[in-house]
């Protein structure tokens, strides 16, 4: 029987080695019924985007605690655009100063979740905003 599942890639770009947050979100998304592809630590934007394309995901969640979000998040979005996959929604989380959020959103990041955001809030956001991408068109 046809059943369209939403698939989400959770990725950790850059150099920091703290993946607790990413794993918690991955687990919570699983509990909410999503198929979550987790790619592990130290991913380059190229690795993330290629994985997202091969896995045909509907969204990418980026977890960054290193402070390099202003470089890495736009880099992922730029690559998605180049590969014609810019309908993949990008959201992010981590230690991101409020002042940086408007810039990231202007670059195409759909939403940013900062420390202290309840997990349930992130999950609700994903449920509301992420649908199978080929249906959205």
């Amino acid at each position: 029987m046809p059943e369209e599942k939403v698939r989400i890639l959770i990725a950790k770009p850059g150099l920091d080695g703290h993946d607790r947050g990413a794993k918690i979100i991955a687990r919570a998304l699983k509990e909410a019924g999503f198929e979550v592809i987790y790619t592990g630590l130290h991913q380059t934007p190229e690795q993330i985007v290629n994985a997202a394309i091969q896995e045909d995901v509907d969204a990418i969640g980026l977890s960054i605690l290193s402070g390099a979000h202003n470089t890495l998040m736009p880099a992922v979005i730029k690559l998605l655009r180049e590969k014609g996959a810019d309908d993949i929604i990008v959201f992010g989380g981590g230690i991101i100063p409020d002042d940086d959020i408007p810039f990231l959103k202007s670059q195409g990041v759909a939403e940013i979740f900062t420390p202290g955001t309840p997990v349930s809030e992130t999950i609700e956001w994903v449920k509301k905003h992420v649908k199978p991408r080929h249906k959205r068109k």
Partner: protein
Amino acid sequence: MDSSLIEKILSGDDVATARALRMIDDELPEAREILKKIYPYTGKAHIIGITGAPGAGKSTLVSKLIELYRKKSLKVGVIAVDPTSPFTGGAILGDRIRMQSHSTDPEVFIRSVATRGHLGGLSKSAWEMVKVLDAMGKEKIIVETVGVGQDEVEIIGLAHTSVVVLVPGLGDDIQAIKAGILEIADIFVVNKADRPEANRLVKEIEFMLEMAGIKDKEWQPPVIKTIATKGEGIEELAVAIDNHFEYLKKSGKLKEKIRMQLEKEFENTITSLIKEKIYRKIQEKMESLISKMENGEVDPITLGEKITRELLKEEEK
């Protein structure tokens, strides 16, 4: 059906292939159209199954095999299956973690798949997904099963060569004489072979094979020691995998396998077509039908027979 999608798949395009795999996994009606069109271009790849207990090192082994195949300029496809939660329907697909070093290689296509309730160690979609990777030109297609116990053996039907990965220290000797998973191996791998019990495990497997009389048959499953994290034993494993494929071709066993696969694909298609038809027909009545059974008015077998009979009669007209 968009014919350019087919062309793109056949030319090895990742985006088109990924899309087709999704349609297959979601069981969309378009999937069948795609499969029909690519079918003539399939049957070229060597399909390798990797199975074994959770934590045995399957994904790491797969990653090292990809590395070796890429050195030989072979194009590689991977289907990595992980379990779906029976409670929430969600899944965490983490096999890619060990394989991400290959994700920027354009000749490697890796797809993670959830079982979505399918038993047997694979997803229902795995069979058809392999066809797409085959059509896109991958020469070696590796299918990694979920971490299995003793009875998830569907991989023998799908793979030409089945590799069973074991690790020392998982159980006493009696585990090794049980039926099921141990009987399906074309090749045994004892991974994490730097552990103290490794040689004993190798001996146990060899003893088991001797007892089962398998050693007298044309193909004797080799037992290969590996330390996947260090890349040790991978070359030997790759040689064994190739030897097995040659054996299949020369002995005529490959033809037999292909016949069995065709039968299975045919059966699967018929089963799902009939099931879809019936469910489409009774969808709206489903609740009331279940209530009837619940109230004891009819049992599920009688009702199932009745509905199937009616559908087949309608088809005859």
